[in-house]
Each structure stands twice: as structure tokens, then as C-alpha cells.
């Protein structure tokens, strides 16, 4: 456990030193700005949708960026020899992947929590009648889990490809997966694949009939997806040249 925390701590410091941490947290905070700056318009439920949909779209873009940074970071760890240095200090290869995963999970939490709180604060009393605090909190939790799934995807790609190529592929795949459902484009909430469904739920929260159940379902599926892809990333790292 001590070694895993040491690896995660190094990963966070590496993100901080290279300004990637600031980029990611700022990217997540910026997603709240359109909602905060929107002026109330239309009827109540449209008004909320008007606030939550840009937030969900922004989250999709920010999470795609997160996946790209995760991929580039993992590939860079391999090419720069820092992963090799840890492995030659008897750190198991999967522990390097899991350490970076924990680091990104924390960064995502640090960026997402204030961003979601800011959006919640922009909702007025009328809006709050349509969006329950628990439903909103669970939808954000599901979005966090969706972020973990795309981080795992990024780490998998970073274990297989070079820095630039893995970053680009992760950006495109995660963007294509997460953004369209938030735009109301296919697939709809009920049929969206697990990580994307979380963001679709954030966008459609005012009209969701079972927000808590949907949030818990998508959260669980996203966590399962994250776990599965993380296992693949660890397996890919086992076979990678460092």
C-alpha cells in the first residue's frame, strides 16, 4: 500500500510540475461557466435544461481531454524511462498503472466537485423543485465514474501507443463516446453506453423520471467499465517495453 501511494504521489507531482494538473482542473472548472453565465430564460424546466446541457457538453469535452492527458502521461512515463526506474525498484508494473489511475481520479474529483457545486448554486428555488439535490449529486458521482472509465481507456492506450498517437486516439474515442449523447444526438439516455449515459443524465436531469436509479445504474456500469479497462491497461503494461 505504501508503494502504491508513493507512485500515486509521484504521479500527482508530475502532473503538477508539468502544469497538466492545472490544465485539467481549469478545464473542469470552465465547464461550469456557461451555466453560471446564462441568464434565466423560458419556462422553469427549459431554463434548467438550458443550464445543465452546456455543463454536460463541457464535461464531455473535459473528460475527453482528461483521457488524452492520461494516455499521453502513461506513454511518456514509458518513453522517458520513469516507469522503468520504478519497475527497476521492484514496483510491479500494474502498480504503476493503478498509481496513475488514482492520481487522475483525485484530480478529477478536485476539478469536478467545485464545478458541479458552482452549477448547483446557479439554480434558483424554482429549479430546485425539479432537480433534487440527491439526484444531482448522484448524477455528478456517475459523471465522475464516467471520467474514471475514460481515464482507464487513456491509460490502456498509453500503455500500447506513443505519446502523441495515444493522446489523439484517446481524445477522439472519449470525445465520440461522451459528447454526442449530451447533445441529444443518438443514443438516448436509456440506450447510451455506460460512461456516456452519466453525462446524458446530467443533461436531461430535469426531465428524468427516475434520476436516482438511473444515476446509480450508470455509476455502477461506469465503475465496472473502468475496472475492466484498467485490468486491460495493467495487462498491456505487463507486456510493454519500458
Amino acid at each position, binding site marked *: 500500500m*505504501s508503494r502504491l501511494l*508513493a507512485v500515486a504521489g*509521484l504521479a500527482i507531482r*508530475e502532473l503538477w*510540475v508539468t502544469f497538466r494538473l492545472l490544465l485539467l482542473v481549469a478545464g473542469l472548472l470552465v465547464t461550469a461557466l456557461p451555466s453560471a453565465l446564462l441568464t434565466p430564460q423560458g419556462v422553469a424546466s427549459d431554463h434548467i435544461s438550458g443550464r445543465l446541457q452546456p455543463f454536460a457538453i463541457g464535461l464531455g469535452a473535459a473528460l475527453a481531454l482528461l483521457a488524452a492527458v492520461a494516455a499521453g502521461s502513461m506513454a511518456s512515463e514509458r518513453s522517458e524511462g520513469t516507469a*522503468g*526506474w520504478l519497475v*527497476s*525498484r521492484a514496483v510491479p508494473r500494474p502498480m504503476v498503472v493503478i498509481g496513475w489511475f488514482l492520481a487522475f481520479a483525485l484530480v478529477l474529483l478536485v476539478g469536478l466537485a467545485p464545478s458541479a457545486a458552482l452549477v448547483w448554486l446557479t439554480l434558483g428555488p424554482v429549479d430546485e423543485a425539479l432537480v433534487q439535490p440527491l439526484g444531482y449529486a448522484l448524477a455528478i458521482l456517475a459523471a465522475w465514474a464516467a471520467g474514471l472509465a475514460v481515464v482507464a481507456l487513456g491509460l490502456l492506450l498509453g500503455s500500447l501507443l506513443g505519446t502523441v498517437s495515444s493522446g489523439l486516439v484517446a481524445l477522439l474515442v472519449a470525445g465520440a463516446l461522451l459528447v454526442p449523447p449530451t447533445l441529444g444526438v443518438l443514443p438516448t439516455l436509456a440506450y447510451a453506453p455506460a460512461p456516456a449515459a452519466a453525462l446524458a443524465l446530467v443533461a436531461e436531469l430535469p426531465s428524468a423520471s427516475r434520476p436516482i436509479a438511473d444515476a446509480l445504474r450508470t455509476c455502477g456500469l461506469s465503475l465496472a467499465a473502468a475496472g475492466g479497462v484498467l485490468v486491460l491497461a495493467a495487462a498491456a503494461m505487463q507486456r510493454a*517495453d519500458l
Partner: protein
Amino acid sequence: MAGRRLLDGVELRVPVGARLLLVSEPEASAPLLLGILAGLMRARRGRFEIAGLRYADDSPRGWRRRVAYVPPHGGFYPWLSPLEVLNLAARLAGFGRAERRQRVEAAIEHFRLGPVLRRAASRGGPGTLQRIGLAAALIGDPEVLLLEDPLRALDDAERARLLDLPGDRLTVLLSSTQPESEDGLVDQVVLLRAGRVALHARRRVLSERGLPLSMRGILALADGAPAASPTAAGA
């Protein structure tokens, strides 16, 4: 060299306490072999037994725990300070706080890292990075030390002082692009040629044949004598 394997089913057996110089034609073969022995790359074929350890025993107290590798330029995050690198290496080696402190202090003194202790390692230049890399590798008391062209940024006297590693049980494999600078540090020589072990001899065989410890001398020995085991060659 396009299309030729850098390594082709190498078989290497090194006894406990050996100080082995590894050179190769082409030059990239020796560092590649060290990378494989360090667990950074996978060997598809070949057999290695170093100091009684079989590659690659993944048990908790096996190969990974007992072998340390020092790349030419540190390998750790360059923004870490020497103190942080040494503490981290001791922590990853599983030492408790008190022993960690003791080992780190000893390493700082031996490797003369005091003046740069709390600055980013990269600010100390390549010599500092290389000193820290070796100090971090030795802090865990490895049984086998893999050195890839080590301490090139240091002057000869300081390099010889730091590479004069104590202990009869420590086995060292040192790959070098300048074999002549390793005189006095090694007692065995291995030449990899076309991906295979072309020569494995004791250092003193070179002297007995009037050959210098240099690439030319090693090649001359390899061309003039069949590959022999160090025991047979040195007896």
C-alpha cells in the same frame, strides 16, 4: 545492422561476486541485455543465471527485489531532489523510517550529495543525476547491480572511487562503450557479437596474452581463442 537481431538466444551464467564487463558488437546489444535483465523488456529466448538467481523469478523475494539497474542518466523524475530520490528508493525497498534515515545519510556522505541535497536533481547536471542514480540503486542492498555506461560525466578518479563497490557478495554487470576506462573495476569480460556470447573470459586472460582491456583487445581475444567459460579460461 538492419534486419539483424541485437540479441539471439543469449545464455549467460555469472557467479556470485563477479565483476563483469559487458561489451558488444553492435554497441546496442549490451545495453539491451541489461534492460532485459532489469525487467524493462521481455526476452523471447535465452537463459540467464546471475549470482544464482534465475531470470525472471517474479516471486516477492525473487529477481526484481534482488537486482538493481542504473541507467546512464538517472531515469527518475528530474524535478525530485537527491534527498527525495534516496528516500523514495529506500521506501520502495521496504525499509522502516529509522533505517531509511540511516541509509540515506550514509549514501549522501559517500556520494557527496550534501551541497545539492534539496535542489531539483536536474539542476545539478548530468554528474549529479548519475551519482544519485547509483546511490539510489545501492540503497536497497541489491545482490546484483546492472550498470549501463555509468558515471560518464564524472572525472576518472571520482568515477573509480564510486565504482569501487565493496562486498564479496555483490555481483556487478557493467556495460561499457569505453572498456579501457573499466580497468581495475572488472574481473570478467563478456563480448556479445551478432546477438550471441562470443567470449566470456576472465580479465587476467587478456593480460596473459598481452592484450589491453579495450574493444580491440577483447576482439583479438575472441578471434584468437574459442569462447570459453571463465572457469576454464581462467584456470
